């Protein structure tokens, strides 16, 4: 198992961030190199992603399941699946807290890569898994940053209606 973690602060209220990360339609798009996103329920989505590190190219089919651990403050995302004869199991835990002028997000991801890729990539895989994981959260941060006020409102509304 490999563990990666990080944190960042953005100038958006916690509710907005929470609504984003708990929306499969939004969170799904943060997965890097996404080919296909299939939202199966309000907390479950399937993605087909393009995995490409130089000549190593393939597609991974990943099922992602969101669990709320503490409403509005903490959630975890379990990602499971694989491709190219290999398996991927990740559990990303996210926690939000209010800070001056925005929200602080801490994330920690435990990743287990199995199969030929884990066996063959001894020299390379750690760096790559880290990069991909970090990209998820960079994408998340960027997406939150570019959210216009309108979009934020729409998200909040959608989240509200989903809850209803």
């Amino acid at each position, binding site marked *: 198992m490999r563990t990666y973690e990080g944190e960042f602060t953005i100038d958006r209220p916690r509710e907005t961030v929470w609504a984003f990360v708990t929306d499969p339609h939004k969170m799904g798009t943060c997965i890097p190199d996404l080919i296909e996103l299939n939202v199966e329920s309000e907390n479950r989505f399937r993605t087909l992603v393009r995995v490409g*590190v*130089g*000549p*190593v*190219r*393939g597609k991974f089919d990943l099922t992602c399941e969101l669990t709320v651990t503490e409403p509005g403050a903490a959630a975890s995302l379990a990602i499971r699946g694989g491709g*190219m*004869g290999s398996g991927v199991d990740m559990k990303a835990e996210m926690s939000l807290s209010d800070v001056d002028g925005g929200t602080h997000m801490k994330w920690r991801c435990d990743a287990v890569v199995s199969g*030929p*890729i884990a066996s*063959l990539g*001894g*020299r*390379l895989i*750690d*760096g*790559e898994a880290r*990069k991909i994981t970090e990209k998820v959260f960079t994408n998340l941060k960027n997406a939150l940053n570019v959210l216009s006020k309108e979009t934020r409102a729409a998200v909040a509304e959608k989240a509200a209606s989903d809850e209803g």
Partner: protein
Amino acid sequence: MFPNAFKYEAPESVDEAIRLMTEYGYDGKVLAGGQSLLPMMKLRIAAPAVLIDINRIDDLKGWRRVDGKLRIGAMTRHSELEHATELFDSFPLLSRTARWIADPLIRNRGTIGGSLVHADPASDWGTAMIALRAEVEARGPHGNRLIPIDDFFVDTFATSLNEDELVVALHLPSPTGPAASRYMKLERKAGDFAIAGLAVHIALGSDGRVSDAGIGICACGPIPLRAARAEKALIGQPLTEETIANASRLVPEDAEPADDLRGSAAYKRDLLRVFAARALREIAEELHGKVGVQ
């Protein structure tokens, strides 16, 4: 073990190759020497839909001197550079590096351009090209451009080439004075990827001081790296026990090794220091007599 089924194209000119690369885009993969790509395909961790085999393009083979530089065709095989006696004097690092690449059979097939484009962090050629301050000549649909080697490697297996650009040659500046080089590498067994490696190229001015210092670091980061601090410390200095020791201590500072089966990051850093000292000492000895080195 068999690779996945793919479409095979074997262009006979660079233009045709680029046309095919443009046509197939992401699905296309250029096959140079194939000594890294084909094993990955056999293991099915690489599965390109189209292989564009550039082995039949004669324009990409061999080397010549152009405008005071050495231009090496991308499809020049490792073994050709290993045995290129006419280059031993002015570009000794070529042969000294080539003989460390994999094994003689792989060297008969693998190419310098293919190795660079593969952008393995343990690329021996990548390391040597950094020491030699090479430029990569790439051609795309809109013409040629020269990419300094420091801008060429972006990340593990990733270069700054566009999808439709083909590496056609390397350009190496000729040394300005008497030059000597060493390639140092520690392997777990003969032919293995490096635990750590170091390419050192030194040229001296007429005053016996270092006029050019190029130091490349192998397998100690996501890409081959440059020991810029050590290079800077050597320029303008004579090669003495003191300057050598000083520069050697600086080499690891530009490395970013990781802990793995080959050893800890600390170990790899120390290997770089040891290699730098050994290489510079040997170089000083070799150049002694050619110019007045203390």
